[in-house]
């Protein structure tokens, strides 16, 4: 069963985090990614750029709107997405516990409803 681990945390201001801390986090995420891959559960892993780089697109009101900035201004922003294939929620929670982002943010564990695989949406 597929689960998305959604990392949320407050976006640090420019220069708020030291170079060493960034290097440490990069190291931790490297080890985490390798562990996921070696366990054979990793489908994809993306750590996102800050919301300052976000563009929002909608035609919800009938008019195409392309906007600078995130859909909603929140204190904590979506910062990364890991998609895993694991047997059950306990396994997904187990991986979320080991995610480096859990140290400074929140990981939302969300089961996938359907995914586009091999030319069709799965059930």
């Amino acid at each position, binding site marked *: *069963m597929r689960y998305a681990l959604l990392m949320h945390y407050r976006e640090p201001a420019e220069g708020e985090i030291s170079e060493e801390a960034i290097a440490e986090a990069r190291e931790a995420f490297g080890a985490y990614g390798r562990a996921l891959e070696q366990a054979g559960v990793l489908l994809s892993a993306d750590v996102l750029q800050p919301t300052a780089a976000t563009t929002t697109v909608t035609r919800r009101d009938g008019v195409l709107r392309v906007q600078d900035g995130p859909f909603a201004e929140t204190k904590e922003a979506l910062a990364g997405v890991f998609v895993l294939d694991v*047997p*059950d*929620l*306990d*396994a997904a929670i187990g991986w979320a516990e080991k995610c480096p982002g859990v140290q400074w943010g929140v990981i939302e564990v969300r*089961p996938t409803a359907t995914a586009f695989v091999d030319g069709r949406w799965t*059930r």
Partner: protein
Amino acid sequence: MDALTSEEDRWVAGPGPDATGPAAHAAGPAADAAALAADAAALAADAAGLAARDSYGRLLALLSASTSDLVSAEDALADAFERALRTWPAQGVPGKPDAWLLTVARNRLRDHWKSAQAQRVLPLDAGQDAPADMGDVDADAIPDRRLELLLVCAHPAIERAVHTPLMLNTVLGFTAEQVGRAFSVPTSTMATRLVRAKKRIKAARIPFRIPDRGDLPARMTAVLEAVYGAYVIDWAATGPQARQLPSEALHLAEVLARLAPDDPEAHGLAAVVQLSAARAPARVDPDGRFVPLADQDPSLWDPRLIDRAHEHLRAAHARGQLGRFQLEAAIQAVHCARRQAGMTDWPTLLTLHRLLHAIAPSLGSGVALAAVTAEVQGPAAGLATLDALLQDGGQHARRFQPARATRAHLLDQLGRSEEAVAAYDSAIDLTHDTAERQYLQHRRDRANRCR
């Protein structure tokens, strides 16, 4: 001592006045199934309602374990019981009723999957399509997955407040109405909560599995607390009403001890529940007045339940690993020993309460410790212990009814009548239970006359 006893005594609900058999209420498929389960079992082998509840929980756990889909399993099981009611009277009861029910319910589930698959226009799996006949099931080999079901009900991904209702509903087959009444929640609200939790279990795929040894202790603690929650009402959260649960609910702790025989705390919990339930007949006098533990007539206590509790205590102590529930049970056992000894062993109680307050500190254990300290070392020492607790506990502690009631009793014993009357008044303000409120008013009036 009265406040302690009034507190701990009413923490455990005996059979409520509204206690009804499983067939009396129906709300939803689980309800129907439980009702039918009882009927079917009665038809089958004149089996007691408990056996029917055991069958219900076992079959439901088994049917939902592979898919985490409790709702479909409940529907399939309800269908199976319905078919049993239609066919058994005419064709006779099968030799292995549980195996029969399991096979019929499994076939129902298979039909359900097939139709769901057909809608998605996917090829049918030949293996899944194959008919299952009665020969597939060996009744003696029907595995018991109720511990896994209990662990699912108390899973950290399930809201804490739903743990206990979910257990009563799935493991024992109590209806949403019965569970709702026990938790003072309208039936429809309780039904919605139960369905939401079940949908969540399926959608997130919460596994029916015993966690590995690293996670097991924490997960078992949640299970123990949820089972305890069937009998105990958290004062601070809901006010002190006794749970109006049918007496068969006592069975939940027994089931857990049987499913986890190596867990000393599971035995400790079963013993606590049974020792408290044993005193239920003595808790209210013929006029409906509350009787504190110290004034209860031990000949009214249920010796059968006390004996059973001692079996659990022996099983727990054989493991040589002390825990909160074992200590609570030991405390209850010392109180119940008054039945034989004719007197209460206060020094032993003081030792036990100190241990309990050290390993599982809570407001309740602190107030109890103060009350027992008063018995052994005098009311002044008890009051000092209690006031220290109130000092540290802040607002929450000062709103704790047992703390106020105990304080009133201790002031009364010290002859500080003026303060005692004020303390009784403040305790009465927080007392929701009619019988206990009358008791406190009576004590206040007596103190008032001494002024």
